[in-house]
């Protein structure tokens, strides 16, 4: 469990040498010793960040730039946390556009001066820093990426009505999935049943919107797909905690998720649902949820 295998067995985008793969190992080794010492002593609560680093599977950082890309990559930095579905939206968008960038993993228990300076209002990830200027809020970042790197495949469609529809559904995902999903793992009893009912309703609304299309964007993978697909890796957690089956309630949505996972930008970014479940398990301990 401490050293999970690479999430999807795929190699990273770009050229990497074996020594870079060792760094997460060494980091985890060091922290595992710290944590096991704490556990042995039995008194000190496990530091959240240690859990996050320990649990982070051995996947290469989302996009390690090729040496020749290094200068361009320095101009684009993403402050993020591996498991964040909001950060993953940005990583997928950058990958879809083929943008080289530097990924910086944040310690949310000890936020970096760079993060605090780049997002003084919310102090949250993700933050995209482009040529020294920060952009915050995941869907604002995705739109920014689409507008700046406009020669890549478009994320939002060209037609104003289609754009408005895409924004509407992106906004729907933002308002509904994370908040209701969080209640599924945090709450018990009647409150949990209420959350389950709401979550299933949300899934059905999304499935009705998807219909028989390949993606929410139609034939082209786009904005709504990017907004929603990171949560595909959270479905296992939500259904296990909530006591239902996402596939039974929304089979087309699950089929859509699997189609998205065939895209390298998605498969290279999302982690194994079991890893997400493990991570939420530790969050539950931290919050004292049974």
């Amino acid at each position, binding site marked *: 469990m401490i050293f999970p295998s690479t999430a999807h067995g795929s190699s990273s985008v770009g050229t990497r040498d074996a020594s870079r793969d060792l760094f997460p190992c060494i980091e985890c080794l060091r922290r595992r010793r710290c944590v096991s010492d704490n556990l042995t002593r039995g008194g000190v609560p496990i530091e959240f960040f240690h859990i996050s680093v320990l649990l982070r599977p051995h996947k290469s950082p989302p996009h390690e730039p090729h040496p020749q890309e290094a200068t361009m990559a320095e101009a684009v930095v993403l402050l993020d946390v591996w498991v964040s579905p909001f950060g993953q939206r940005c990583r997928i968008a950058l990958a879809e556009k083929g943008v080289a960038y530097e990924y910086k993993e944040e310690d949310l228990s000890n936020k970096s001066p760079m993060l605090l300076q780049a997002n003084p209002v919310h102090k949250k990830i993700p933050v995209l820093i482009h040529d020294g200027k920060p*952009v915050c809020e995941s869907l604002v970042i995705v739109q920014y990426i689409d507008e700046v790197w406009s020669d890549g495949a478009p994320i939002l469609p060209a037609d104003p*009505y289609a754009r408005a529809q895409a*924004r509407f559904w992106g906004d729907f995902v933002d308002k509904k999935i994370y908040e209701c999903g969080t209640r599924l793992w945090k709450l018990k009893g009647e409150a949990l049943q209420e959350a389950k009912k709401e979550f299933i309703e949300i899934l059905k609304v999304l499935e009705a919107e998807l219909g028989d299309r390949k993606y929410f964007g139609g034939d082209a993978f786009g904005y709504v797909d990017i907004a929603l697909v990171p949560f595909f890796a959270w479905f296992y957690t939500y259904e296990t905690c909530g006591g239902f089956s996402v596939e039974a309630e929304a089979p087309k949505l699950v089929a859509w998720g699997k189609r998205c996972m065939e895209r390298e930008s998605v498969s290279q970014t999302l982690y194994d649902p079991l890893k997400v479940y493990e991570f939420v398990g530790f969050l539950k301990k931290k919050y004292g949820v049974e």
Partner: protein
Amino acid sequence: MAEVKLLGKWPCPYVLRARVALQLKKVEYEYLEEELGGKSELLLKSNPVHKKIPVLIHRGRPLCESLIIVQYIDEAWLAAPSLLPASAHDRAFHRFWAAYFDDKLSPLLTRLRNGERGRANEEAAEGVKLLEEAFVRLSEGKGFFGGDEIGYLDITIGCHLGWIRVTERLMGFKLIEEAKVPGLAGWAERFCAHEAVQGIMPETEKLMEIFQLAQIHMKRSKR
């Protein structure tokens, strides 16, 4: 049949956003006032997901969510003024602060109107101070967040000024005070006096009346 229709309720600041955007772009539209206590069949059919106003109906196709409607108006009617700025980074800035206002400040204003005090007061003061800084940064010495002309962020925040004034009266002190936030104070006056806003922005007195009626109605229904 009018090419552009807007379903709304007169006290609603989100509806006002759509109206100001349409006025700025000089788009002719039919305004359909929804009953204050109810939802028409047209509304329920046009916005089955949220069942809320505003809904813009353009050539028979509905659009929902006020800020999405404002962006649609900007993109569908390309005549000046542009509501969002030219640079991608400035657009991101407008969108960020619009999300901040809708996610943080607007719910806070509602809580303050419903009587919450103490920490809520401090949060409101901090929020207004942040908006002042954003105004100074984005206006670059000009009259609006959008520069010389009203833009996306002006519409987002400005259309709530009536309700901000109602909140100030209920709290007994000014949130947008010249001594503390001179940039915002000047901007608020300019926004309300703008030809695209004047005449459609509801009077604060009427909003107060509606608020007090709603409070009475709420207390009665709780019994």
